[in-house]
């Protein structure tokens, strides 16, 4: 009986190779991640700039009644709104898990869960804790906080820019 084996049949070998190539090429454009999203990039930049400006103002006011938590509610409301919009858009993009996770972390670093205690994780917790509520956190604590917030936002921005470079490489 004339059995078809790959090693003995060069024609069959070529066809199998072509078939494998077709199957592999069918995966071309395979997506492990979402593409770069310009609106996410802009939104992250806006949140970073607003937070940075706010911390700068708070550093200048630190130790005075101007730095009281009650006088800066507008900033926290504004950032909460920006974050909600960003979360909504990020959730609508397929395969965007890492960015969604990073936006959650930005929320944790800026707004936290409103604990206002040592269990807190955010700029707002630092500002609303009982010792800092009336005159704001110390300038050195705010400088430290700015570093943490900027690093968290910059992680999300770096990922967006990496996606942009990845898309450009595949053009």
């Amino acid at each position: 009986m004339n059995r078809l084996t790959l090693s003995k049949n060069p024609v069959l070998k070529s066809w199998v190779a072509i078939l494998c190539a077709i199957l592999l090429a069918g995966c071309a454009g395979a997506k492990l991640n979402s593409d770069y999203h310009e609106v996410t990039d802009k939104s992250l930049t806006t949140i970073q700039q607003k937070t940075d400006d706010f911390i700068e103002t708070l550093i200048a006011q630190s130790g005075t009644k101007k730095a009281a938590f009650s006088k800066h509610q507008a900033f926290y409301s504004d950032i909460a709104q920006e974050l909600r919009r960003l979360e909504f858009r990020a959730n609508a993009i397929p395969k965007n898990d890492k960015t969604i996770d990073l936006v959650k972390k930005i929320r944790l670093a800026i707004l936290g869960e409103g604990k206002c205690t040592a269990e807190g994780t955010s700029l707002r917790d630092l500002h609303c804790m009982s010792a800092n509520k009336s005159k704001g956190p110390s300038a050195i604590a705010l400088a430290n906080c700015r570093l943490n917030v900027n690093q968290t936002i910059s992680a999300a921005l770096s990922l967006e820019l990496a996606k942009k470079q990845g898309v450009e490489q595949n053009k």
Partner: protein
Amino acid sequence: MKSYWKAESEKLAIALRMIIEPRAANERSKAEAKILLNQQKVATSAVLTAAEGMSAVAVQAALNAALKVIKDLVNSKIGFPLL
């Protein structure tokens, strides 16, 4: 990726030092130091998440580049754009 991780590790070390030193000198309350440390944990975890995401982006770019080579090869052998 490597340079990103190196730069971010340095920033994390600076931030940690900024938390520890004032606390050791009693210039910062325990609660403040704890919040800043918790916040730094969030930042560290964000850096790790971004690094994971960047690896996936690099894998995707390499995979797509390799598949493009196969596609070009098949199309050139066949003589028309099949794929």
